[in-house]
């Protein structure tokens, strides 16, 4: 497979008369100023874009097959009860500062992550019911869990659980994030917060996972800059201030697509699709007929076309199609757009426009829904279109844009009728946060003991087929119960200069494998 790809690449290079050559530098545009960049502490997904190339992880996930492949661990085995993971480590690996990588380094890193003093915002929780790490010998290490945790390998394949140099961590303390040291294909040179982050090629790198195509990095340097204002991203690309730029706005992407110097690489992001949670405990959404009416009465195709310029697929259910465990059968629900059926369902539920004001009512109460949304991710635009579509059904929407902390508060108190959200993640266990009765994002306020059991079992069993079955049932149940209105699967529109070749992304869809990037001259 790899050879065939190589042949193709060579053929393509010959055809265009340009050969990719090692060396050179690119500027990579990030879209959020990250909230701190220590992968063990901070939660931002932006930090993973540069740091995935600074660090190695114990295992890697092949984005094509979803299988886990060796990284810093050459082999691993899982105990019968799913509570003990034994990793056999690769020998001869050195951190950029010369510190040898071994079992003690793994133990040091995992213990650092779970230490309460570190106050980890993400990595700690990715370890689930972690209990401790045991060093068996210099190159064998055991992770012991209190109970089985199926997403562990997925977690260990992410930069948040990457292996940092114990020497550097101890030397720099709370300033470690400005002086990071890993074992990866690029060396962390400097980070000026809010301004730029610079990586330089690690010439000694020789232990890359099989998913990497080159032994060492082809670029000499990669500089990252922060383009928080979406309107400035495509101008920055076109003026040469950046060579790669994430999250290009859809209207700019359409224009760049037609250019000779740039292309759009659209990457489907796995996780929870952009969806509207319907609060099933608040009238009138406690009536399933009303919720189903809203599903039938939402023209998702029109939204995708107007807001996203058809760059994203319509979402069918809670999981994006790019996620392991996605159940394509959910697409049978509430499709296609059917305002007549929506109207019939509302009539059946007793909502009629008796006073002729254009808004349905029942027992003297008008059909008005409180819709809280956040100002990012095109939620306000989506909300506006939905409000228009539902107005035609005789449903009035009161929209209000709120901040994320406020939204969390509103959801906790259940003051909303509707609230949108999306979250990326490659393991379907992410559904537990949204549809388990105790989940932190249970914004539908669902309490379904059977679904709770499926979600709990999904987090425990390691058999992939069994897990896929369980999550298929969860997705069916979510749609049958009309808990959400799925809108779109997230797609990251990367704007890329045609100088840049070989840009590929990991299984999360966000993190580039910079080792294989080359420049065409």
């Amino acid at each position, binding site marked *: 497979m790899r050879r065939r790809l190589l042949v193709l690449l060579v053929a393509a290079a010959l055809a265009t008369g340009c050969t990719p050559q090692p060396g050179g530098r690119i500027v990579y545009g990030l879209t959020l100023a990250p909230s701190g960049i220590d992968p063990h502490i901070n939660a931002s997904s932006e930090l993973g874009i540069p740091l995935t190339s600074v660090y190695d992880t114990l295992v890697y996930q092949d984005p094509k097959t979803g299988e886990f492949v060796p990284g810093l661990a050459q082999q691993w085995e899982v105990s019968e009860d799913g509570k003990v993971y034994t990793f056999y480590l690769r020998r001869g690996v050195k951190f950029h500062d010369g510190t040898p990588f071994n079992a003690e380094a793994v133990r040091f890193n995992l213990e650092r992550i779970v230490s309460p003093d570190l106050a980890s915002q993400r990595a700690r929780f990715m370890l689930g019911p972690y209990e401790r790490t045991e060093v068996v010998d210099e190159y064998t290490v055991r992770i012991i869990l209190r109970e089985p945790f199926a997403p562990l390998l997925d977690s260990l394949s992410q930069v948040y659980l990457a292996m940092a140099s114990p020497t550097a961590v101890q030397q720099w303390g709370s300033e470690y994030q400005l002086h990071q040291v890993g074992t990866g294909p690029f060396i962390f040179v400097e980070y000026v917060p809010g301004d730029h982050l610079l990586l330089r090629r690690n010439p000694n790198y020789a232990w890359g996972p099989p998913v990497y195509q080159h032994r060492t990095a082809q670029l000499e340097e990669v500089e990252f800059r922060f383009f928080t*204002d979406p309107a400035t991203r495509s101008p920055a690309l076109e003026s040469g201030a950046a060579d790669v730029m994430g999250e290009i706005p859809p209207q700019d992407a359409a224009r760049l697509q037609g250019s000779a110097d740039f292309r759009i690489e659209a990457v489907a992001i796995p996780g929870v699709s952009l969806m509207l949670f319907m609060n099933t405990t608040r009238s009138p959404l406690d009536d399933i007929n009303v919720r189903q009416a809203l599903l039938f009465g939402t023209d998702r195709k029109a939204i995708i076309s107007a807001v996203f310029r058809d760059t994203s697929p319509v979402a069918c259910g809670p999981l994006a199609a790019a996620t392991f465990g996605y159940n394509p059968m959910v697409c049978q629900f509430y499709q296609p757009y059917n305002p007549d059926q929506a109207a019939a369902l509302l009539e059946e539920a007793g909502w009629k426009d008796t006073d002729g004001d254009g808004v349905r009512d029942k027992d003297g109460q008008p059909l008005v829904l409180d819709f809280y949304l956040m100002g990012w991710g095109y939620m306000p635009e989506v909300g506006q279109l939905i409000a228009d579509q539902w107005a035609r059904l005789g449903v009035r929407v009161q929209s209000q844009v709120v901040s994320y*902390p406020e939204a969390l*508060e509103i959801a906790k108190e259940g003051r909303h009728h509707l609230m949108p959200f999306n979250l990326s993640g490659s393991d379907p266990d992410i559904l537990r946060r949204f549809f388990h009765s105790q989940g932190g994002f249970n914004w539908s306020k669902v309490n379904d003991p059977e679904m709770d059991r499926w979600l709990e079992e999904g987090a425990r069993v390691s058999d992939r087929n069994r897990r896929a079955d369980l999550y298929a049932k969860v997705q069916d149940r979510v749609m049958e119960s009309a808990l959400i209105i799925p809108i779109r699967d997230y797609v990251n529109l990367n704007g890329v200069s045609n100088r840049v070749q070989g840009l590929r992304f990991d299984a999360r869809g966000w993190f580039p494998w910079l080792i294989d990037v080359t420049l065409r001259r």
Partner: protein
Amino acid sequence: MFGYGLRRLLEAVLVLWLAATLAFGAMHLTPGDPAQTLLAASGASADEVARRRVQLGLDDPLPVQYVRYLADLARGDLGVSWLHGRSVRRMILEQLPATAELALAATLFGALVGVVLGLLAALYRGTWVDALLTGLAVLGLSTPVFWSGLLAILLFSLHLRWFPSAGSGGLPYLVLPTATLGFALAGSVARMVRAQVVEALRMPYVLAALARGIPPWRILLVHVLRPALGPAVAVVALQLGFLLSGAVVTESVFARQGLGRLAVQAILWRDLPVVRGVVLVGALAYLLTGLLADLIQVWLDPRLRQ
């Protein structure tokens, strides 16, 4: 003089205390639980969120938190960012130079351009020159920075390729952000200078000076402009708040580092230690600018020395 200095110092301490207290109160009254905001997306359980709240000291009664905060502040300790996990003092010191550089450059640009435009408009008052310049001033005043910044990028970076659109490192990178932010400031300075000069030109002492045969350029620069500049300096000093909030947008449009972006992120994430730190620095900047403006005005206008 000593009494005056002491009074200014006491005022400064009072202002800083008020700013600190306001920052404390405002963020505690804003809806949203910081611990939950930090951890919700990571799938932390309710227990784990509660533990983090204790760790951050948020479960203590508000007066206890307030006293602890003031005590830390008195020792010069701004705390550790809840979001970044780093010292707030270090984070602010990292971002301060970029913001100060932009604010200073924009002030100089705005003052210079504003004074020249205002003076010309006053001299040619009632003509098309006046109308044009006054129109420009109003345009500067009323164009939001995110819009003028984007237009500047499209014109000067994308089409003419004169200046880089983003980043830092040397004068070329400073030109567009300075001009964008300074243009807005120039508008208000120009209007103020025009009004002052028009008024001064009507004064009997100008006529007297003319009668004594003093050259018109000297009258203009020494007798008219100098007293007119006092109020303009006050205007510039009062625009600091605008400059700081404009800097937030400018930093974002031109992908620059700076305190503005730090502050916005801290507010969005309920990162209280950083919010308080930035507010204090802002208050300090106001005090220093106020002092500087007073000194300049006294130097410009001897009547204020009594």
